[in-house]
């Protein structure tokens, strides 16, 4: 097992050790260990039902893992995520995520969606909103800063002109990008993207690649990426973890993973088992050929 793509001697941002998640008799994740480096893109791939999203749900506190340890390092402090509440994970450990099916606050404006993500800072500045109500200077300053940060990210995702629109009225691709902007407004240390390219056309996918790379390079954030679109995974990630039926079957740089016989078997199936979805297989084969 190759150990990811960590920079020279840096401890990894996220360490997942022996993570197991059972639902009754079903083992969704079975003793998975991997790590994700800071300022790098780590992709988690695998066939449908491999347990990718379950890992995200464990990381963000939505599920409590049956076994295992999830350690995140932020500002010299270690956070053991399996022991924390969801909102504390977001607030203190700084994990932000997006969803396969977009989950915006549909009936709030685009800008408000970004302000909600910054409310911990705002609540502190506003003294539980009492000062906000009488619009004290300290609160106004904090709010102006929050709006600035929101505007910055709207600019990055190309939605600045639509800041006052209701989020539910945005086009699908715009909603996906707004979700990323919202995640970034909470100033995360680790950004978890769950199939960000799903439903995007090739041009939008290209823009998305650029956005994710920009987030990694300029904002010094670790990115954990679940994606089926191999043109995203292979092009931008430094490190790929492959899951199949809840087990890790490969872990390494994209080039190594692509050639790994276990991965090819998982995607293409054993020889006697030829009923695997052809489009998934097609992706891998295309890449192996055109690479």
């Amino acid at each position, binding site marked *: 097992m190759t150990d990811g793509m960590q920079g020279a001697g840096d401890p990894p941002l996220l360490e997942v050790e022996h993570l197991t998640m059972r639902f009754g008799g079903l083992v969704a994740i079975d003793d998975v260990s991997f790590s994700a480096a800071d300022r790098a893109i780590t992709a988690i791939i695998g066939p449908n039902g491999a347990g990718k999203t379950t890992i995200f749900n464990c990381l*963000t*506190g*939505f599920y409590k893992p049956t076994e295992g340890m999830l350690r995140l390092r932020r500002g010299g402090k270690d956070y053991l995520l399996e022991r924390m*509440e*969801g*909102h504390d994970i*977001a*607030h203190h450990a700084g994990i*932000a*995520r997006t*969803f396969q099916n977009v*989950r*915006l*606050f*549909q*009936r*709030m404006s685009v800008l*408000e969606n970004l*302000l*909600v*993500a910054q*409310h*911990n800072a*705002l*609540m502190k500045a*506003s003294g*539980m*909103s009492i000062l*906000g*109500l009488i619009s004290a200077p300290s609160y106004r300053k904090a*709010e102006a800063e929050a709006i600035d940060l929101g505007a910055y990210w709207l600019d990055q995702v190309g939605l600045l002109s639509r800041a006052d629109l209701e989020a539910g009225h945005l086009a699908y691709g715009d909603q996906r990008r707004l979700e990323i902007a*919202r*995640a970034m407004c*909470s100033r995360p240390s680790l950004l978890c993207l769950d199939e960000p390219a799903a439903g995007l056309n090739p041009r939008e996918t290209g823009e998305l690649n650029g956005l994710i790379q920009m987030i990694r390079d300029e904002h010094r954030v670790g990115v954990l990426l679940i994606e089926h679109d191999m043109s995203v995974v292979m092009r931008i990630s430094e490190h790929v973890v492959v899951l199949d039926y809840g087990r890790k079957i490969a872990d390494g740089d994209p080039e190594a993973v692509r050639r790994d016989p276990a991965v090819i078997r998982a995607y293409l199936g054993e020889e006697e088992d030829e009923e695997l979805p052809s489009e998934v297989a097609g992706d891998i084969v295309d890449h192996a050929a055109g690479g």
Partner: protein
Amino acid sequence: MEYFLQQLINGLTLGAIYGLIAIGYTMVYGIIGMINFAHGDIYMVGAFIALMGFLLLGFSDVAYLSIPIAILLVLAFAMLFTSVYGWTVERLAYRPLRGSFRLAPLISAIGMSIFLQNYIQLLQGARVKPLPPVVQGGLNLTTPIDGGFAVTISYLQIIIIVMTVVLMTAFTLLIAKTSLGRQQRACEQDKLMAALVGVDVDRTISITFVTGAALAAVAGLMHVMYYGVIHFYIGFLIGIKAFTAAVLGGIGSLPGAMLGGLLIGFIEAFWSGYFSVEYKDVAAFSILVLVLIFRPTGLLGKPEIEKV
């Protein structure tokens, strides 16, 4: 005409009280999708605390206090202690049941309501408690024409209406403009997602109960001063009427609760003014039935569209 104006003023006063209570129903429904049937009794508790506040001030020989300051002091006292009740009710009866089946918190709300009634009955006795009028006098708006009567608005009515307008404005601003309000609206729409951006959902729900209880305490204070008598059972009928107001306006909608409260106040005042006092409750609840039949989402409520 005078008669109409007079009923309009009376209705406005009633509506203010109903509106303040209705906000508590609508906010709690908005955030956890549950009717807090104990809210009417929180209002009753608020009225008792306000009464105690007045008595404490009376006993402590601070006659030099001017009436407005005394009222403000009692108001702060009632809001503070009623909030504690609101917080406790949520903490004991609803939070442990979160994530349970939908009927569970409803049943515990009804249990809480019965508990609060009996608790006050035990502690305060079942007899009616009077409060001598604190604010007297009023303004004549018209001069009586022979045989007619003058339309008056009492100072107390002015205080009630002004206080309500101020509180509702502040509350609307709180929800629309401040970070706390955004947080509340975020929890209303998607609690899981709110938690994922770092919002403490449980605390936000607590704050909702606390603010609802504080507004109910204001309504309770108004009740004590306006009617001059309270007993342990006032929360039931007025609570149900405020709930009707919230449904009429569109449950979950803040302006809806205010509008609904106002309408119920007018309906009652005009019904008892022009038809018969005995049937004023029937009139109010008939409205509830009609609204539920013809416009289940209320006047300002938006129908929930579920995307498939």
